[in-house]
């Protein structure tokens, strides 16, 4: 696995930004000022971060309803995201999309998505563009354990295989599709074998381990860039909050929830491993924590103060001939 000190610091900053963003949205949501509903990525940071660190400007990601982490890792403006979540005029989608539809095509973020399983066909399309236009780009489809069972996902894996499209399928398995256990809902309970059934090589990694995800993603992306077609990674991790804010997660057994933040925290693991081995200094990581905290705090303050969209925008950005 190849990563330098700079890469490690960037990885940590991204993970910390996602965590702080989500913890803050969790807190602010309870005040009732955030409209609609939000699905938080806290606990899952290593996946978006380590996968997106392999990507460049010509690469794209298709995301999910739990999309804040993918958006941050792919380079979306954090302040623009927060404004979008608050429904503000200069949010990333002009206040028309909200949490579940954050997108920024300029940085290759093809959109969070309100439809479970909708992302993989879009990733195949983006990969088809990259291949046809010879940009050298690839496309990542992040999808959850629920979406893994959708027909669109299976169809996309087959489509990517038959055209050897440069797609990385990333199954983000947080154990629960809404309230339903993934060990039950994924028939056969062996996602890598399912991918292999489509002729797609896959691997399974612990998503609390940034280094394990990084290694698997780097290997897969290098293989895809060499022109051998799609790859698959099954990442297992823990979602700290409910399916959406307001869901009490009572379907999780208590003993599973009790110590998850203590024992299943990618950021803690990262700090212990990098500082314990002398790769990074604790002060450097602490400094990042402070900077991130300042950034997120400013994002929330600016979002709260920002104006809502002008009512005239209700009928812009849509074909209208009457």
């Amino acid at each position, binding site marked *: 696995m190849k990563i330098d000190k700079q890469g490690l610091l960037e990885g940590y900053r991204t993970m910390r930004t996602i965590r702080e963003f989500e913890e803050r949205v969790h807190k602010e949501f309870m005040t009732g000022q955030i409209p*609609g509903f939000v699905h938080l990525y806290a606990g899952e940071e290593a996946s978006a971060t380590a996968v997106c660190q392999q990507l460049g400007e010509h690469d794209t990601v298709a995301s999910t309803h739990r999309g804040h982490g993918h958006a941050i890792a792919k380079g979306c403006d954090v302040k623009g995201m927060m404004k979008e979540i608050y429904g503000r005029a200069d949010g990333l989608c002009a*206040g*028309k999309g909200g949490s579940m*539809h954050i997108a920024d095509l300029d940085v290759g973020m093809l959109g969070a998505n*309100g439809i479970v399983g909708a992302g993989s066909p879009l990733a195949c399309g983006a990969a088809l563009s990259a291949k046809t236009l010879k940009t050298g780009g690839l496309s990542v489809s992040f999808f959850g354990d629920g979406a893994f069972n*959708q027909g669109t996902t299976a169809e996309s894996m087959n489509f990517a295989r038959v055209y050897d499209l440069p797609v990385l399928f990333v199954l983000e398995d947080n154990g629960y599709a809404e*309230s339903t256990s993934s060990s*039950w809902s994924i028939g056969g309970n062996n996602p890598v074998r399912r991918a292999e059934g489509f002729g797609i090589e896959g691997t399974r990694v612990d998503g609390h381990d940034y280094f394990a995800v990084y290694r698997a993603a780097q290997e897969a992306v290098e293989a895809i860039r060499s022109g051998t077609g799609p790859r698959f990674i099954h990442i297992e991790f823990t979602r700290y909050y409910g399916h959406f804010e307001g869901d009490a997660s009572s379907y*999780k057994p208590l003993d599973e929830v009790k110590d998850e933040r203590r024992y299943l925290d990618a950021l803690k693991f990262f700090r212990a491993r990098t500082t314990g081995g002398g790769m990074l200094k604790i002060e450097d990581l602490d400094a990042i924590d402070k900077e991130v905290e300042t950034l997120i705090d400013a994002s929330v303050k600016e979002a709260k103060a920002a104006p809502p969209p002008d*009512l005239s925008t209700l009928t812009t950005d849509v074909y209208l001939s009457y």
Partner: protein
Amino acid sequence: MSVKSFREALNEAMRDEMRRDPTVILLGEDIAGGMGSGGEQDAWGGVLGATKGLMPEFGRERVLDTPITESAFIGAAAGAALTGLRPVAQLMFIDFFGVCGDQIMNQMAKFRYMFGGKAKTPCVVRTLYGAGFGGASQHSQSLYPMLTHIPGLKVVIPSSPYEAKGLMTQAIRDDDPVIFFEHNTMFDDKEEVPDEPYTIPFGQARTVREGKDVTIVAIGMMVGRAKAAADEMAKDGIECTLLDPRTTSPLDEEAIIASVKKTGRLIVVDEASPRCGMASDISAIVAEHAFDALKAPIKRVTPPHAPVPFAPNLEKAYLPSVDGIQTAIRAVMGVK
């Protein structure tokens, strides 16, 4: 009789029919919840809690949580309905019609006709619709006109808890596929609802209020808004008849035409997009059958032809409002 919420009314209708008929089963995503987990079973009872308590009473053999696979389980409901069961499937949001459209549009809707009348397809697809809760473009649509357009489907849109219980009971007993629309923001609406089972026949509009000046036809959540607007206008001496069609397929054309023949004015309030929506359809029916009775042009009150926006101020402006309906009433009356 007791005061019940929309959620409780639906729950009672399903519970009573499951007690009455062992072939009634429920299936859908998290309709109990906790499937395969070590935590609370029946943790959700459906996304808005309408099926809570039914799994503990009837067991997982009759209340089936499904993987997130709309094509598979909506299609399975159609197949099971053909072969002896009476499934009530929950398509969480009607927006997900986009995922499983084939099974509804080309399969369950067609069997009875396409098989020469030999098949029955007694299934209900419960589904959430409508704006007003910040759900944005992919969770807030009012797609009932699309389903109404498809021959073979019955389409039900209850406007209150009382209506919800009676229409759900009828839907489960019906031998054709029924798409049952439940508004995202109406689950906590409350009113007096009988404790015992009752049915409300399809294709019979409800007269919510009577007045000599204007006929208002309103659908689903819009019935409440239209009533508020009409009650307000009565203070100015303008008396409106308000009709709630209850079902858009079959549609009670006769009641609408008869009312317009009396009042000479028609307003249709519809939460669906304006083009090819129920407002357009009902307007065409009236123009065809009661043209001579019209004293003013027909008014359609609908959202603009745009996706449902996220920002609260845009979403509020998107939905037909009480004010907007009053403006329409004044317009057809020719007053300011």
